[in-house]
């Protein structure tokens, strides 16, 4: 009696194993899928690393219009020249000349000292102004120019303040104490030297896994449709029973392949290429389990609707940008309308990317990032059930069509 049961389970297991092996064969016999699954997955991270190689935006060319032409304004310029972010390239006699340079994109910003700059500084009641004009064609220009100018201004200001206090008859020591009454220290946490690449590449790595898996599974589903393969049935088996084994068998094949790829991309790639990696690798490997599973079942659900190999490819591609932004990484999630955040919660990438960034880039433990970890397991369960139901329904539909 017991042995009959065991034999029954063994048969089921063998069938799943057959599906598993068969799916791996299908993957490796399809050059299009191999390109997406393996070549793109391994090449894209390298391309993005090369693209964002220089982390910091340095030497943004800036024009100077110094109408005051005094020792004070030159002292400022001297400090600015030492700032790594910007480079004072042109000294212009008029604003019109500087604007021309900006229009021709020879510079990305203008620093303007008004004629009365020194006079206002010298006047104990005056307030001197410096005008900045920032090219907004990339926010990073603005950031480089604005922040470096702000820094120079704050540094110079103390000297001016002390000067003024002294003129008021406050002794120098007291003036110093007054000006530096509350100093501060600033720390960029987690990746002190990190720039644009450090911030974006982790999010992109997670996206590459998500989207290549998504494309590949949809492509395989589409091909099966075109070739009239009955993906919802094991030959010689009743439809309902075999759906579960098919979903598990196929998912197993993707999982084996992608778990390895995820370990390379999220585990080793950051360590090899000097991308932030302050998290524990075992936590990343543990987070990858539900992330890859949720993505597989999510993609299997969508692939049921893909009628042939090419259809929807455009939709799938533009989804990359939408998923990236919807997750709330480059644009903060707090500033995304609630409706989109609900949609985002359905996408495995949203949880996977935040989870990975928390562990990898901010050194969180798996326990600290449990919200994302649990959400991914919930998605895994929900999309697994949904994938079974959808596959069963699509089988039922196509059999009814045939009848």
């Amino acid at each position, binding site marked *: 009696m017991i042995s009959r049961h065991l034999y029954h389970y063994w048969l089921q297991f063998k069938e799943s194993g057959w599906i598993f092996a068969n799916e791996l064969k299908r993957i490796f016999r399809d050059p299009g899928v191999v390109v997406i699954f393996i070549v793109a997955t391994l090449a894209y991270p390298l391309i993005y690393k090369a693209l964002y190689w220089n982390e910091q935006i340095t030497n*943004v060319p800036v024009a100077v219009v110094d109408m005051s032409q005094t020792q004070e304004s030159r002292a400022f310029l001297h400090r600015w020249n030492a700032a790594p972010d910007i480079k004072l390239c042109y000294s212009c006699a008029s604003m019109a000349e500087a604007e021309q340079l900006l229009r021709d994109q020879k510079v990305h910003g203008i620093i303007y000292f008004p004629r009365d700059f020194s006079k206002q500084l010298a006047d104990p009641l005056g307030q001197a102004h410096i005008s900045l004009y920032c090219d907004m064609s990339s926010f990073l220009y603005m950031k480089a120019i604005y922040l470096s100018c702000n820094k120079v201004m704050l540094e110079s200001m103390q000297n001016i303040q002390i000067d003024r206090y002294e003129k008021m008859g406050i002794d120098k020591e007291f003036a110093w104490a007054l000006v530096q009454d509350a100093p501060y220290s600033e720390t960029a946490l987690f990746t002190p030297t990190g720039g644009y690449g450090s911030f974006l590449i982790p999010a992109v790595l997670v996206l590459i896994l998500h989207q290549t898996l998504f494309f590949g599974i949809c492509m395989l589903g589409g091909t099966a449709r075109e070739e009239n393969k009955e993906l919802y049935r094991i030959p010689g088996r009743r439809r309902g029973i075999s759906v579960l084994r098919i979903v598990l068998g196929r998912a197993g094949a993707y999982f084996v392949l992608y778990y390895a790829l995820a370990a390379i991309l999220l585990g080793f790639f950051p360590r090899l290429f000097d991308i932030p990696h302050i998290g524990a690798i075992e936590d990343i490997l543990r987070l990858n389990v539900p992330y890859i599973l949720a993505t597989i079942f999510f993609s299997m659900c969508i692939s049921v609707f893909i009628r042939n190999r090419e259809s929807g490819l455009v939709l799938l591609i533009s989804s990359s940008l939408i998923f990236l932004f919807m997750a709330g990484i480059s644009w903060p999630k707090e500033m995304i309308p609630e409706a989109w955040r609900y949609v985002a919660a359905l996408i495995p990438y949203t949880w996977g990317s935040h989870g990975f960034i928390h562990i990898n880039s901010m050194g969180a433990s798996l326990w600290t990032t449990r919200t994302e970890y649990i959400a991914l397991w919930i998605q895994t369960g929900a999309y697994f059930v949904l994938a079974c139901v959808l596959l069963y329904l699509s089988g039922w539909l196509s059999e009814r069509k045939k009848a």
Partner: protein
Amino acid sequence: MLLRELKQMFARPLYLFASVGVMVLSTFFFMTLMKGGAAEQMPVAVVDMDQTTISRRLIHEMQATPSVDIILTTNSYPEAREAMQQGLLYGILVIPEGFYDDLVSFKRPQMDFYVTNAYTVGGNTAYKQFLTMVNLTSGAFQREVLRKKGMTDDVIMHRIQPLAIDAHMIANPWSNYSVYLVSTILPGILGLICLMLTIFAIGFELKTKTSHDWLRAAGGNYTVAMIGKLIPYTLIYLILGIGCQLILYRFAGFPVYGSYGRLFMGLLLFIFAMESLGILMIGLLPTLRDALSIGALYSMLGFSLSGFTYPQMSMLAPVKALSYLEPLRHYYLIYVNEALMGAPVQNSLPSAFALVAFMIASLLVAPRLHRALIYQNYPSK
């Protein structure tokens, strides 16, 4: 010829859905994504170990600013740090113990602030606000001391703030992230659709071996066949392009300092360049699935290579060279010239010529593609 194409187009509604649907969805998505386009109310924490009136006033004043939202006030830094690791907040301001006492006795107590750079927009916003607050606190204290010395507020103010920077954000005075991002992303998605659908429209004839029928409809003439095939699609792209530009620059009121006409001409050239690139790809790789895969990988890189987020000047030399192979880079340059800078037409001409060069490039594969249409001599899978 045209009739055949239109019939095909409507027989497979996927064509229409893919182009119109994706564009409408993306436009809707990106136009509704960024609530106003400026980062506000970014969650931060204050670790208040001082717990005096002055630290509470600081917290109160910071809470009143629009850019940050103090969601956590605690006296434990590890707690705040863990909240940051959970992605709940972007910055932590630490007010040390005895801050008030040290301040009044001129012991120069130090405030520390920590911001995350794993999320840059949130981190930057928190950073700027913290910097302002720290300086304001220092200013407020100086004012208190000077008042006690019997000075009037008016006199004091200029001593505390002898210098100011007025920042002018050219063509985007609100530093609106949406204006900046959407202006290049949406045309980029349109270009991606042009590229993929061109590959698809031609490749599908090859895949289903209907290219003879297609050529026959065109009287055996390759040029007529190509033009006839692409005209209906091009019309759709143009309508989508016009719609997109109208939404951005009329409806949403994104600034255009130069000429609308030239900006639109730029988009037109960009559409043609992407179609041409599609012909080039299916001409080189006449197997539909291969060409589509390459097309997808290529056009996705365009978004980064165009240089609208991470500037081209900071890219490595070979990457920089590669960026010129992306039509989106050239459209972006025209956009900067026309919309943001109001530059004279000659500034945009090099980019326009580059886009024309892409159009000419597709002629290179004409003989090869023509042969493929006739002999159908390519792997069918």
